[in-house]
Each structure stands twice: as structure tokens, then as C-alpha cells.
């Protein structure tokens, strides 16, 4: 069924005031204290993810500073070895599970509905549930940290060290359950995004017109679906080994500690791309806008993102070169590790060509992209080096690896993310960030970053192992470590300036207007900050950069959606032709209560498996209430309608 173009409806027939009023009423976010637990709008949930993730970035940053303090000079004893183990474990776990993945999810949840031109994600209540899962998991880990139950076996928790024999107590159980919480949240967001992208794009946004950021989180979401179950299996098996006496990783009863590494890295390597791919999407948007031209090689770029998504699953064993693998296995995974440099290279060349062929406007977001180029390419080069088994065996577990993955993760994900915050902050808040302060912050972060992590290459080559709490003076590692610690302080200063800018600009920043950067994608068609319903009318898309191709008030729009309920347009998968209308649910408390029941199950399981049953029973009421059909104006049974 296709919608007919109807010239009959003109401006005269549409009461814009009434449309605004009705939409604002039906999409109203609940207020008050209890309203907080009932929110289902994607902007609210997305911002919650982003803010929460940045709070945990600060926590992880403080842990990093403490470690750099301890390593600044040889033979320091400010922090004892056990506390140091807890610090690096919590730092890594926080940055990976509580910052990097959730912040990318938050950006996706916030931006995808705006960029594809719809009013909310496909499953708003599930979206809220996912956020609470993340929040509870994060709080759970930090309750442990502050009650002296912090995990201490490293963020990848290798067995047998993390198993019942060598990690008695509850430390690693807290870690394992934090994983269960956050992975559940990631999976939920993945479903949201995939279905929103497949079914809810504005009419005309065929697959070859989808913005690159949306493509990137779409591919990321598929990676989440295939990678995250691995870590849920792994953390589940670890929990069973620890609390119920199973033997998955216990060699005495036929288990195999290496099984952990295989499952963990089957998740862990794609995880790097789960963090990195949305970042490439962000920088593609920034690059396009400030080069003032459409992306060079759109199709090649999208295909290379997709192929990174596939090849990312064929690399996990390169984390295990030092475990003594069959030679064929080593060769295969070396080849795969080098292969992934090809699509990444294609992306880099597309971006350079875009800059080259455009009229670049050097704004703060674009500087972050340029910073990304410098840092990420350096990290990519060391990546190609450690893809080779003999070299990897040499530097395994040294600071060279620490340097490599910080170059890749901070350069590849955090720099584009900060650029993206500068880029989309005006949309999210309605005010611009301060440019001068932004520029100063960028350079402080760039210098601080390189000062911290570049010396670590040398330290690693000189043999300094990672995860040691101190080192002797005669090792000669002192000066480089001091340099790195000074760099860490500079990064911290940059971080503080960034936060100052973010807080000050909310009130004092220049008003942004709808489209301060003169960008071409749909989110810039909405108000800043967007109304709860995103768009007064769903736009009709006629190109990759709709706002560049048509003047704002000449963009054709969809009419005939009901404004008195949360109605959205569902379109066809490939060509985004209108298919049917669909009513999304409004605010509700049940996802929160179901999340509480889930929390009781997960947290209780750390102590006794029967808690899982209790949590399951407690969950029945909220889940039934969640799915129980309501008789309100949003529910019009077809029987009555035809009568």
C-alpha cells in the first residue's frame, strides 16, 4: 500500500498552533519526582546515558590519575599492590563497560530518531529498561568499590586467576554481575536502534541516503548482537564456577582456562569496534558539515564500515598469541588482523578526500577530527606491528600494549566523541559551547594525551610490564614514567576545562538556533533543544543531505498522522516508502519496576542462586502490567472502530 501525494492539503488547512499543542500534550514527559521513573522519550533516555557515562568517565579518570601518581617515581609506596590491582581492574572495567559502550549507545539513542526523522525509538519502554539496567550495574560495581569488594583480577578477568581458587571472596562476582547488567543494556539498545533504523526512517530515506552516523550505529548494533552474548555466557560460566561449583574453567575436572580467553575475546575484540565504529560515524558527520560538501565515496565508506563489522569477529585470537596456539591459527589471525587495516584505510582516505575536495572550516569539532587522524593513525600503525606474532610475543603484557590501545581507544573513540559533543551540544541544549575555551581545551588534551601515552611505547620496548604497582630505580624507567604522569595531569586539566565549558554554556552560551553549523542532516531541522515529539511534521527526504538540497521551508512533509496520540510512521525496509501508522506507548513505571526485579535477581545471585528465582517471581507483576493492553485514547480496538 502506498500513500498518495495529496496536493489538496495546504497551509490553510493545517492549524499549526493546534498541531503543536496536540503534539506537546500527547508527547508530554511526566514531571515531578515519580515522573523521573516513568520517562520513555528517547532524548531523555539518551541524555541520561550520556551524562551517566561521563560521570563514570570521571571516576575512571580519577582511578587512572591515582595509578599515574603511584608510577610517577620508582619505588613509591603510596598505593599498596592490592589496591593497585583494584585500581587498574576498576579503571579498565569502568572505561570499557560503564563509559565507552554506554556513551556510544546514548549518542545513538539520542540522535538516531532525530537523524532518521521519527519521533521516538521503536520500543520506548524497553529503552528505559535498558538504561536502568546500565545504571544499576554501574552502581553495583561502585558499591563494591566503596565497600572494599572491588574486583582485582584485571578488566578481562582471566581464569584461573579470577576463578574460585585464586580469587576467593565476592570481588570477581561483583565484576561478573556488573557485566551481565551492562551487556543486557547494550543488547536492548542494539535492538532499539536496529528496528528504528529498519522500520522508522522518514519517507524517502532509502538505504543509500541514511546518514553515515546512523549506518555506523546500525552496524555497531549488529556487532553487539553477536558479540555481547559471548560475554554474558562467559560471565555466567564464571559465576557458576565461583558460586555453584561448575568446572568450565577448572582443568582438574576437564575444564579449560583458555576457554575463558576464547569466549572473552570473541566478545572483547569486536568490543573495540563496537566503541570505534560509532565514533567514525560521528566524525564522518562532522567532516561532511565542516568540509561543506557531501562525503566523498559514501558507498565505499558504508561498505567499509560493514566489512569492519564482519572482519572484527575474525581477530579475537590475536589477543592470545602468547598462549601457544597452533601455527596455522597464528597465521590465520595475523592475516585477519592485517586485513582489517584495509577497510579502515579506505575510510581514512574517504575522509581525507572529503577534506581535500571541500572548503574546510576549522571549528573545534573539526580540530577534534584532525586530532583523531594524528592519534588514531599512530595507534593503527602499532596495531599492524603487534599483529605480527614474533613482535607481539616480545611486547606482550608490556606498556607498549597499553600505549597501543590507548592510542586506538582515546584517539579513535574519545576524540571523535568530544568533537561530537561540541558538534551536537547546541542541538541538545540550545546553546553553543564556548569556542575559545573549546580550542584551548582541545590543544591541552592533545598535548596531554601524547605526553602521557607516547612514552609508554618506549617503556614497553624497554621491557616495563603492565600491571606492576612499582619498579626499581635502576630499571631506568623513571623519567619516562614521570613524563607520562605529568601528561596525565595535563589531560585532567583539559577534562576539567571541558566540563567547565559544558556547565557554563548551558546558561551563558550563545543561542544556537536550529542549525548553527549549516549542516545537512535531519536533526538540524528540529528545534534546539528538540521538542519532545522531535518534528512538527515528519519530513520527506530526497537526498543524503536533505537540508542542503532544499530550503528548510520547501521540504515536503507527511500529513495525516494523528497528533492526539503518540503516532509514528512505519516505512519499508529498503526504500522507506510509507507502510503503516503505529502508536508508541507513553510514560510508564513498569520498566523501572521490572528493572528493580531484575536487579534483585542479578545482585542476589552473587550470594545465592535462589535469588534468581525470587527476582523472577517479583518480575512477573511488572512484566505482565507492561504488556497488558490499556483502554485509553491510545488504544482503539479495531472492532469498535468498524462498528
Amino acid at each position, binding site marked *: 500500500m502506498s500513500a498518495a501525494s495529496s496536493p489538496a492539503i495546504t497551509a490553510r488547512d493545517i492549524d499549526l498552533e493546534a498541531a503543536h499543542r496536540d503534539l506537546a500534550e500527547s508527547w508530554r514527559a511526566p514531571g515531578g519526582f515519580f515522573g523521573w521513573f516513568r520517562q520513555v522519550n528517547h532524548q531523555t533516555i539518551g541524555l541520561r546515558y550520556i551524562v551517566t557515562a561521563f560521570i563514570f568517565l570521571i571516576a575512571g579518570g580519577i582511578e587512572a590519575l591515582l595509578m599515574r601518581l603511584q608510577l610517577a617515581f620508582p619505588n613509591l609506596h603510596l598505593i599498596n599492590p592490592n589496591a593497585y590491582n583494584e585500581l587498574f581492574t576498576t579503571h579498565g572495567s569502568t572505561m570499557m563497560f560503564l563509559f565507552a559502550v554506554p556513551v556510544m549507545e546514548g549518542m545513538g539513542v539520542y540522535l538516531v530518531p532525530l537523524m532518521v526523522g521519527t519521533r521516538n525509538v521503536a520500543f520506548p519502554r524497553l529503552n528505559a529498561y535498558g538504561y536502568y539496567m546500565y545504571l544499576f550495574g554501574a552502581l553495583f560495581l561502585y558499591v563494591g568499590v566503596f565497600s572494599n569488594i572491588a574486583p582485582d583480577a584485571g578488566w578481562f578477568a582471566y581464569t584461573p586467576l579470577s576463578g574460585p581458587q585464586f580469587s576467593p571472596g565476592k570481588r570477581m562476582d561483583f565484576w561478573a554481575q556488573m557485566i551481565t547488567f551492562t551487556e543486557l543494556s547494550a543488547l536492548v539498545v542494539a535492538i532499539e536502534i536496529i528496528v528504528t533504523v529498519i522500520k522508522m526512517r522518514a*519517507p524517502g530515506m532509502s538505504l543509500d541516503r541514511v546518514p553515515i552516523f546512523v549506518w555506523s550505529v546500525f552496524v555497531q548494533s549488529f556487532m553487539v548482537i553477536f558479540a555481547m552474548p559471548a560475554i554474558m555466557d562467559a560471565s*555466567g560460566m564464571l559465576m557458576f564456577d565461583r558460586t555453584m*561449583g561448575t568446572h*568450565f574453567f577448572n582443568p582438574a575436572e576437564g575444564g579449560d582456562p583458555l576457554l575463558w580467553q576464547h569466549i572473552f575475546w*570473541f566478545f572483547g575484540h569486536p568490543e573495540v569496534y563496537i566503541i570505534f565504529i560509532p565514533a567514525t560515524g560521528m566524525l564522518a558527520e562532522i567532516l561532511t558539515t565542516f568540509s561543506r560538501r557531501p562525503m566523498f565515496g559514501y558507498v565505499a565508506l558504508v561498505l567499509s564500515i560493514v566489512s569492519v563489522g564482519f572482519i572484527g569477529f575474525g581477530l579475537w585470537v590475536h589477543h592470545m598469541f602468547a598462549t601457544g596456539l597452533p601455527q596455522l591459527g597464528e597465521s590465520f589471525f595475523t592475516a585477519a588482523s592485517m586485513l582489517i587495516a584495509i577497510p579502515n584505510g579506505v575510510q581514512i582516505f574517504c575522509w581525507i578526500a572529503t577534506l581535500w575536495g571541500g572548503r574546510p572550516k576549522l571549528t573545534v569539532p573539526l580540530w577534534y577530527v584532525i586530532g583523531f587522524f594524528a592519534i588514531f593513525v599512530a595507534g593503527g600503525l602499532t596495531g599492524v606491528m603487534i599483529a605480527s606474532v614474533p613482535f607481539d610475543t616480545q611486547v606482550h603484557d608490556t606498556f607498549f600494549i597499553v600505549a597501543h590501545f590507548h592510542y586506538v581507544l582515546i584517539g579513535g573513540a574519545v576524540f571523535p566523541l568530544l568533537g561530537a559533543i561540541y558538534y551536537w551540544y547546541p542541538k541538545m541544549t540550545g546553546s553553543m559551547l564556548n569556542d575559545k575555551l573549546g580550542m584551548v581545551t582541545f590543544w591541552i588534551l592533545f598535548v596531554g594525551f601524547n605526553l602521557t601515552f607516547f612514552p609508554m611505547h618506549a617503556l614497553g620496548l624497554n621491557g616495563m610490564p603492565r600491571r606492576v604497582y612499582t619498579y626499581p630505580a635502576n630499571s631506568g624507567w623513571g623519567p619516562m614514567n614521570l613524563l607520562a604522569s605529568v601528561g596525565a595531569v595535563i589531560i585532567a586539566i583539559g577534562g576539567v576545562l571541558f566540563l567547565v565549558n559544558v556547565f557554563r554554556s548551558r546558561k551563558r552560551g550563545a543561542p544556537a538556533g536550529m542549525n548553527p553549523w549549516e549542516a545537512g542532516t535531519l536533526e538540524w531541522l528540529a528545534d534546539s533543544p528538540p521538542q519532545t515529539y522531535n518534528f512538527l511534521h515528519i519530513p520527506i527526504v530526497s537526498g543524503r543531505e536533505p537540508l542542503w538540497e532544499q530550503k528548510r521551508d520547501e521540504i515536503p512533509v507527511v500529513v*495525516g498522522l494523528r497528533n492526539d496520540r503518540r503516532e509514528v510512521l512505519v516505512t519499508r525496509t529498503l526504500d522507506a516508502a510509507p507502510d503503516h501508522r503505529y502508536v508508541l506507548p507513553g510514560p510508564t513505571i513498569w520498566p523501572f519496576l521490572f528493572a528493580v526485579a531484575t536487579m534483585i535477581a542479578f545482585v542476589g545471585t552473587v550470594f545465592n542462586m535462589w535469588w534468581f528465582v525470587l527476582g523472577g517471581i517479583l518480575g512477573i507483576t511488572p512484566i505482565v502490567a507492561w504488556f*497488558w493492553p490499556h483502554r485509553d485514547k491510545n488504544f482503539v480496538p479495531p472492532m469498535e472502530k468498524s462498528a
Partner: protein
Amino acid sequence: MTFERTLDVSHLPDAAIDSRGVLWWGQIGMMLIETVVFALIVAAYFYIRIGFSVWPPPDIAPPNLFWPTVNLILVLASCIPMYLSSRAMERRRFVAAAVWMALNVLMALVFLWIRRTEFLLFNFKWVSDVYGSLVWTLLGLHTMHTIGDTLESIVFVAITASGRVGAKQQLGAKMDAIYWYWITATYALLYLLIYIYPAALRGTL
């Protein structure tokens, strides 16, 4: 906006009860996730198996095939009322839909009761050795999914009987049925892995 060109969608249906609906895609996504969860544990099973010269380990008794086979036939048969229920739902014959789904729930409860027997028939526990850990985890996880979907079906029987059936509920009941087929298919594969494979290796098939 000048509204020079508009696209009127008011005549489009306000729901879809097939694969065009968002719920359909969401449920398929969830089933994909759960398939990966099972597939990776099965992969772990075969990874562990490489380290053994005798599989299953010598202490493990050859599986008793009678009750698992009964259960497999039962769960396959239970797909029939489930199918009839979701077809009745599509045709908006809600009484028939509720009755067929209730029959499916009854069969599911019997299936779960026999599942208890399946566990009792093992001469090993999850703590016995790694084989026990793998088998109990796989079958336990499947039991959890079965309980979950059975509860979902009970809720759908109640919703259907209450007459509060809109397009969302029609599609929901259909997805509940598809989920049950997935549970059936998963059990069929686990049946091969947990019962037939070791029996064949032991020559007791």
C-alpha cells in the same frame, strides 16, 4: 513551512500484524541474541571435547533416551495448537485463539514436568565434572526460556480471553507462537547434542 508538497498518510492502516510490524523485528532480534547465546555454549562444548580422548567422560552413564524422546515428540506436537492459535488470532477468532493457546500451555506444563525427569535421569550433576557443567547449563538455560515463554503464553491467554485485543496483541500473540517454535527447534538441536550424540559415541543408540 509552506506545505507546497505533502504526503497524506491518514488512509494507511494504523497497525501491521505481520513482518512489516516493528514488534516482529524486535522479536526476531531477541531470538537472534538468544541463538548466539546457545551457539556459543555449544561451541564451548566442542572446544572442551577436543581435550578429551573419551567422550563423554567414562563416569557418565549412556543417556536414557525414552523420556527425552517422549518430550521431543510432545514439544513438536505442541506447535500444532500454537499454530492454530496464531491463525485464529489473525482471523480475529479470539475464543478459538485462547482455547488453542491454553492447550499449548497445558502441553508446555507437561513438557516442563518431563524436563524434571530428564534432569533426574542424569547420573551426574553440574558439579561432577565439566561435562556435567555443560549439559546442565545448556538444558537449564533451555528450561528457563521454556518457563519464560510459557508464562508469556499464559498472559496471552488471559489477554485474549479478556477481549482486549488490538493489533499489537494480535501481533504479540503471533510472536509468542514464533518464539515457541524457536524453543522447539532449540530443544530438537539440544536433543541431538545431549542425548543422541553421546549415545552414538557410546554405541548405545
